[in-house]
C-alpha cells in the first residue's frame, strides 16, 4: 500500500502515472469571499479507497464535484482516468459513478424504475437485481422514492452510482443519515467494490468511517489539504503515544497536566481531557495521586490509541464532530 508523505501541496507524492485514477494539482475554486478550495493536490491510486476527511465547509464537495465535471475549477489541473476533467468531462461520465451529497431522485418513480432509468443512460449496466441486492433495497423495490426513509434514499443514491459498473466511484458523505447497521453494510459494499478492482473516492466527516474503510486519507480544512497518507501513518507520525482520557476536572489545568510524567501533550475538548503519553501506567498513577490530593476523582477514565480524531484535533485545535 503506497504511503504518500505529507505536504501542503502533496507535491511530494510520486508521479505514478498509470497507477493514478485521479490526479489533482494546485486546484483552486472560489465563491465570492469564500476560497472553497485553496490550492490542493492529491492522487488516488487505482484500486484504492481514498477518503477526503474534514468538517462541514472544508471544501470536500466542491473538490469532488469538480472531479465529476459538475463544476469548473478556477485554477489547477484535474485528471480523472487520465482525462482532463475540466474540459472533457463528457468522456469521463460513462466510466465513473457519482453519488451526490444530497440524494436527487424522481419522487414519483419507484426504486426499480429509477434504477432502470439510469441503466438506460449507459452503454453497459449492472442488472437491477444486483443493484437492489447490493444496497439491500429488494423489499422496497416497488416503493416510490418519496416514500423511502432518509437512509433508504441514500442507499438508492449509492446504487445509482454503481449502475454502470464504474471503474471509479465518487461517494460524497455516503453514510450520512444512515443507521449504524446500514452504515456497516455500506462499508462492506465499498470493501467488496475494492475487491472487484473498483477505485473509490469518498468524503466523510466520520473518523471511524475513514479509519475502517480508507487505504489513504487526505485531511481537509478551510479548503486546504492539511495532511495525507495512510491512517496508520498519519496517526503514528504524530502520536507515538497513547491517549488517556477522562471527564475534565475543574481543578486541573492544562499546564499542570503536562507536568505529569511522560505526558507529551494535554488537550481539553468538550468536557473531556485527553493526555497523550508514552507510558500509560506512569501517567495514570500520577494523575490519580494528584487528583486525590485535590479531593477529586477522575470520572469515565479510559485509555485508547490515538486516532484520526486526535490527528485532526492536533492539526486544527478543533474537534471533528458530526
Amino acid at each position: 500500500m503506497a504511503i504518500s508523505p505529507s505536504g501542503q501541496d502533496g507535491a511530494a507524492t510520486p508521479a505514478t502515472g498509470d497507477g493514478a485514477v485521479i490526479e489533482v494539482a494546485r486546484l483552486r475554486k472560489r465563491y465570492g469571499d469564500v476560497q472553497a478550495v485553496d490550492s490542493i493536490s492529491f492522487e488516488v491510486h487505482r484500486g484504492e479507497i481514498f477518503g477526503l476527511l474534514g468538517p462541514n465547509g472544508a471544501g470536500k464537495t466542491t473538490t469532488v464535484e469538480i472531479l465529476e465535471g459538475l463544476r469548473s475549477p478556477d485554477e489547477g489541473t484535474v485528471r480523472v482516468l487520465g482525462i482532463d476533467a475540466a474540459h472533457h468531462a463528457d468522456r469521463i461520465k460513462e466510466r465513473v459513478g457519482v453519488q451526490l451529497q444530497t440524494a436527487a431522485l424522481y419522487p414519483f418513480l419507484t426504486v426499480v424504475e429509477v434504477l432502470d432509468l439510469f441503466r438506460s443512460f449507459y452503454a453497459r449496466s449492472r442488472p437491477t437485481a444486483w443493484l437492489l441486492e447490493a444496497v439491500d433495497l429488494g423489499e422496497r423495490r416497488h416503493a416510490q422514492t418519496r416514500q423511502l426513509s432518509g437512509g433508504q434514499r441514500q442507499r438508492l443514491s449509492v446504487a445509482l452510482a454503481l449502475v454502470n459498473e464504474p471503474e471509479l466511484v465518487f461517494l460524497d458523505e455516503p453514510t450520512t443519515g444512515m443507521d449504524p447497521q446500514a452504515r456497516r453494510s455500506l462499508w462492506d459494499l465499498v470493501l467488496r467494490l475494492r475487491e472487484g478492482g473498483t477505485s473509490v473516492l469518498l468524503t466523510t466527516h466520520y473518523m471511524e468511517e475513514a479509519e475502517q474503510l480508507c487505504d489513504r486519507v487526505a485531511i481537509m480544512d478551510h479548503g486546504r489539504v492539511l495532511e495525507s497518507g495512510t491512517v496508520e501513518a498519519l496517526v503514528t507520525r504524530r502520536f507515538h503515544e497513547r491517549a488517556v482520557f477522562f471527564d475534565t476536572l475543574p481543578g486541573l489545568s492544562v499546564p499542570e497536566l503536562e507536568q505529569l510524567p511522560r505526558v507529551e501533550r494535554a488537550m481539553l475538548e468538550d468536557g473531556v481531557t485527553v493526555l497523550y503519553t508514552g507510558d500509560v501506567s506512569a501517567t495514570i498513577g500520577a494523575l490519580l495521586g494528584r487528583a486525590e490530593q485535590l479531593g477529586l476523582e477522575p470520572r469515565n477514565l479510559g485509555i485508547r490509541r490515538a486516532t484520526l480524531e486526535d490527528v485532526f484535533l492536533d492539526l486544527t485545535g478543533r474537534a471533528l464532530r458530526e
Partner: protein
Amino acid sequence: MHALVMLTRANIRSFVRDRTALFWTLAFPVIFILLFGAIFSGGGDTTYNVGWVDQDGTAASAGLRQAFGQVPLLHLEDGTLQASRQAMQKGALNGIIVVPAGLGASVAAASGGPGSPGAAGPSSAATLEVYTDPSQQTASTTIRQVASQVVASLNVTLTGRSPALGVTDRTLQTQDLTSAAYLVPGILGMALMQLGVFGAVPLVAQREKLILKRLGATPLPRWTLVGSNVLLRLLIGLVQAVLIVGIGVAVFGVQVLGSLWVMAALVVLGALSFISIGYVVAAFARTEEAANGIVQVIQFPMMFLSGVFFPLEIMPSVLRPIATLLPLTYLGDALRQVMVSGSAFAPLPVDVAVLAGWFLVCLTVSARFFRWE
C-alpha cells in the same frame, strides 16, 4: 434513443402520479369547458329566433311567412338581409330564411300546370335560402328541418305532384357569445398555454431537487433531457386537444369544419411556443414557489386578455393593444379559424408567424439563461 424513451416514460409516470399536475392540465380545462359551455350555450328555451327576409313581396311569400309563423319552434323577425345577418352575427338570431325575388312567380308557374319551365324541379328563383350556424348544431338542424318540412308540405299543396320549392343551406359562422363554437378553440388554446407555461414548475422542481444536476453527471445528452420534457408536454397537449374538442363536439354539438391535420399542427406549434415561455420562466425562477408565482402572473392576464372567452371587439379599446401582443390571442384565433371557420382576428399565416416568433425568441432566451443547477 433508448434513454429518450425511458426518460419520457419516467416523465409520463411522474406526471400521471402527481395528482395536482394532472388536475391542472387535464381536469381543469374540462371542468372549464363544461361550466362555461353550459352557461353560455343557455339551453332551456326551445324557440329559435329566425330572421325573415322577404325579397319577393308577393302573395306567395306572404303565405309562406304565415306557414312558417305557425311553427311553434320558430319566432320570426322581419328584416332586410343585411340587418338580419348582422343580428345573427351578434347572436340575436339563430338563423335566417330568405325568400328571394321571383319566388312568387316561380310558384305560380309551378302550380300553373305541367309543361311550364319551373315544374321540372326547384330552380334558383324558387329556392329558399336558409342561413344557420353549423356550430350551433341543434338550432341549425332544427331550423333546416322545419324549413324542409314546411316547404315539402307546401309543395304538395301547391302542385299535388312534384316539389316546386327547395331549400339551399347557407352557412354563416357567428360571433355569438352564447356559442360553444367560439369557446372550444379558445379553451383549447388556454389549456395549451397553461400546459406549456406551467411546465416551468416541474422543471424548476427538478433543478431544486438536484435531479437535473444528477442527470448532468451521467452521459445523458442535454438534448435528450430537453427533448423528453418537450415530448411529454406535446403528448399531453394532444390529449387535451382530443378531450376538449371531443367534449365540444359530443356535449355542445360543435362542428369541426377544418382539417384535423392542420389543427394538430397548430396544437403542436402553440404548445411549443408556450413550452418555450415555460423554459424562460424556469431560466429565471430560482424556486418552485417563485416559478409558480411567475406562471400565475403570466397565465391569468393572458387568459382574460386574449379573447378566449369573448371576442376582442367587445374588449375595452385600452386593453386591445395588449391583446395584439399576446401569443394566446393568435393561437385562439388560428384554432378558431381552422376549427369552426370563425371570423379572423388576423390572417392564419400571421397567427402562425407570431407563434413561431414567440417560440424562437423564447428558445434563444432560455438557451442563453437556463441553469441546470
